[in-house]
């Protein structure tokens, strides 16, 4: 005997989004007439509007509805909305179910008949499912007010300062010896041409000095346990071989160190650094590190010049990595991006042709604090180029490398053109582009400025850069070969210098990092946000937020905005004190449990404990994440997964097959 419930069914038109394909009136009428549990069924223009929601509230109160089904969009869009309506009407929100007849149906086909039939199945299934649903209460979880921020670039710095200024404690973990990220490497910033260091370093100093920020530089997160409100994180603080408490940051060790290596990080290959070094003079923290891989002492057991000269005995060759355990309530990932490795595009000659430079090399070159003190010169370090080609979309918008647009290259390429004009007024500058993308605030104006400055803009993706001269004027030059697509002619442009505007890539280890934090990477390696439009800050994992270029290629203003937004999301949770978790958890019925322990090893969170004395297993609710693997595996059906019980799902299957059920099965048993 099935119990009789009073179900209210609401079929949404979503304007014409659904009603244009699905005969919503037919669906509503049909379910009202054919499913005995349905008390009332209606169709309505926009169910998510306040009037639509009031309709539900009113029916619950007036008609005594015990269950509610809304057939509309995806539950990922509006489940929360309608659960709220149910609650306001006095119905437990877990007695509500959505049927997705928009994304999964009306938007996926043009076949009206089939779509209407499918909508009936989905609605009927939802009705059958709700009948089996039970009232549930969300689980309150207390929020630890400390926050972990991973990555000390401009996004992470912004988030850290926002939270710390609000009075909450922040652990800022940075992999490199100094915070600052890519922004610290840049010279000027588009479109206003502010000096990057001038606007960034004060913020870095604030971070270094803030009483509410624990800065863990030269450190990496190793283990993440727990869940929103209560994460337990292990951080590896790599050995610097410098005692931070004793180091004054005087820089004598760096000055005296006899060993020099090419700096492939901060100077992007264009310059050298010592083996005991600070990446740059304004580094925060200002302590150096010893690069053990290249240090003469670590290699040969001899040298120790730094130790000899250190006035405070702060060098410690015996220092070891430290593992620190920290407890936080929320985590913000601001792990940034990698620059596309231009050597991968062999036809552009980087690594083979000396006067081909990457964009990051050029940033360092034009920087007054860089290897050439800001002079634009060829690889020989002396000669000044009379002509410069800037090639856009290097590694971007190309299925052989990265398919997407890297968002910032057009603008920084314009900036490069400007800087060449400024430093070498007589030089010819060519920008080779496919499409000029200048969609930010004041960006188009900057493009116009470069048009005025006389940059040659050539529309065409460069085919190759070669040193094989054909004509006398090409001898000794780099020749940029392309099609000028606006005149439809193949052209060869001889220049002295080529700059490759390399794109933005996800971090090489983004997948491992995502896995460490229990979240996902998209196809291109950027972290997946909860919603691409409405929630680009949160992730699918509660309590873990993302900010900056780790979410997708973006410029400084957008990274700053996301950093601040992530801080605000965390602040809001901290202020709430507790967070309500969906009560989708497994539970073991002791009476039915045979003690077989199959579930024990299946649980990915070790949330199932076996009681030797009672010979039964038990789910630790606080650890359970509700995946339901154990429910599916239990041979004695002793485990039930709240809101996804066997009864609910079996009824849903029954309901979804209303039109094809075999005759035999329709007969009473």
């Amino acid at each position: 005997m099935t119990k009789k419930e009073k179900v209210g069914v609401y079929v949404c038109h979503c304007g014409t989004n659904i009603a244009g394909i699905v005969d919503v009136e037919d669906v509503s009428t049909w379910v009202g007439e054919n499913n005995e549990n349905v008390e009332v069924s209606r169709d309505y223009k926009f169910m998510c509007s306040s009037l639509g929601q009031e309709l539900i509230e009113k029916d619950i109160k007036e008609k005594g509805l015990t269950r509610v089904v809304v057939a509309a969009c995806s539950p990922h869009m509006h489940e929360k909305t309608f659960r709220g309506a149910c609650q306001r009407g006095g119905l437990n929100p877990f007695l509500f179910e959505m049927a997705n007849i928009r994304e999964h149906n009306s938007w996926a086909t043009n076949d009206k008949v089939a779509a209407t039939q499918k909508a009936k199945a989905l609605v009927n299934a939802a009705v059958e499912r709700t009948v089996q649903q039970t009232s549930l209460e969300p689980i309150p979880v207390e929020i630890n007010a400390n926050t972990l921020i991973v990555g000390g670039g401009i996004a992470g710095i912004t988030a850290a300062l926002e939270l710390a200024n609000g009075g909450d404690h922040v652990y800022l973990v940075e992999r490199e010896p100094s915070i600052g990220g890519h922004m610290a490497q840049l010279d000027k910033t588009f479109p206003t041409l502010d000096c990057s260091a001038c606007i960034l370093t004060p913020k870095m100093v604030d971070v270094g000095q803030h009483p509410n920020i624990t800065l863990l530089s030269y450190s990496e997160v190793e283990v993440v346990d727990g869940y929103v409100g209560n994460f337990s994180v292990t951080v590896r603080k790599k050995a610097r071989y410098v005692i931070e408490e004793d180091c004054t940051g005087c820089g004598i060790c760096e000055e005296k160190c006899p060993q020099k290596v090419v700096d492939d990080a901060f100077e992007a290959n264009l310059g050298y650094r010592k083996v005991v070094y600070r990446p740059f003079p304004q580094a925060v923290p200002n302590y150096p590190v010893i690069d053990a891989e290249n240090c003469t002492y670590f290699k040969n057991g001899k040298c120790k010049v730094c130790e000899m000269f250190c006035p405070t005995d702060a060098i410690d060759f015996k220092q070891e990595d430290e593992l620190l355990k920290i407890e936080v309530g929320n985590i913000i990932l601001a792990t940034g991006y990698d620059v596309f490795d231009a050597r991968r595009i062999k036809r552009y000659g980087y690594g083979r042709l000396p006067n081909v430079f990457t964009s990051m090399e050029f940033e360092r070159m034009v920087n007054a604090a860089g290897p050439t003190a800001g002079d634009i010169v060829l690889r020989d370090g002396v000669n000044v180029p009379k002509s410069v080609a800037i090639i856009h979309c290097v590694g971007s918008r190309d299925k052989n490398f990265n398919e997407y647009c890297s968002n910032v290259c057009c603008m920084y390429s314009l900036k490069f053109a400007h800087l060449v004009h400024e430093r070498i007024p007589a030089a010819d500058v060519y920008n080779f582009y496919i499409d000029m993308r200048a969609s930010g605030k004041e960006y188009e104006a900057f493009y116009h400025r470069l048009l005025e400055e006389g940059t040659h803009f050539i529309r065409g993706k460069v085919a190759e850069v070669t040193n094989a001269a054909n004509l006398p004027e090409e001898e000794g030059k780099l020749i940029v070969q392309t099609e000028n697509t606006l005149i439809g002619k193949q052209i060869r442009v001889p220049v002295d210098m080529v700059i490759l505007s390399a794109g933005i890539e996800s971090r090489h280890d983004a997948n491992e990092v995502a896995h460490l934090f229990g979240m996902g990477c998209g196809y291109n390696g950027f972290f997946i946000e909860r919603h691409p439009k409405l929630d680009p800050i949160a992730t699918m994992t509660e309590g873990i937020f993302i900010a900056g270029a780790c979410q997708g290629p973006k410029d400084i203003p957008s990274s700053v905005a996301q950093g601040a937004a992530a801080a605000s999301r965390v602040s809001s949770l901290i202020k709430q004190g507790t967070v309500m978790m969906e009560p989708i958890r497994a539970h073991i019925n002791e009476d039915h449990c045979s003690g077989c322990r199959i579930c024990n090893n299946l649980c990915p969170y070790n949330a199932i404990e076996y009681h030797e004395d009672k010979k039964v297993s038990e789910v630790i609710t606080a650890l359970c994440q509700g995946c339901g693997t154990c429910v599916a595996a239990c041979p004695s059906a002793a485990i039930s997964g709240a809101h996804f019980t066997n009864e609910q799902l079996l009824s849903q299957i029954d309901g979804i097959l209303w039109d094809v059920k075999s005759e035999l099965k329709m007969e009473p048993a």
Partner: protein
Amino acid sequence: MNEKFEPVIVGFLCNWCSYRAADLAGTARIKYAPNMRAIRVMCSGRVDPQFVLKALREGADGVLIAGCHPGECHYVNGNIKALRRFILLKKMLRQLGVEEDRVQLVWASASEGNVLAAKVDSMTEEIRALGPLNWNETVLGGGNGQHAAVTEPEEV
């Protein structure tokens, strides 16, 4: 006009990847066969073989199980458990005399609406070619109401 056989496929889509892939397919207005009817589960690892058998028994011509790519499971490795169950399930279907291709598995991440849509299209065509399942005749034999040995699957 000759009526084309329209198979009914029940899809079990995991909440985090493949359900969102189907959402994305819709948002991107990718058109695909309307033959798959989706049921949301939190994880593909939640798909109990009895759900699949129930669907086939109740009139579905095929079942699609969709989850996150291996290594991308929201619950660490629920999809791997789904895969192991799926392999056993296929074995069982063979014993029951049901064509293996009636139950299929696909990995579709939240960004792969096109993958899911293409899978639904290809599966629909494959099942259309197989024809209706008719559980009663195929498995129960001649529709005499005798239950064949539908054993609980071995757990993994």
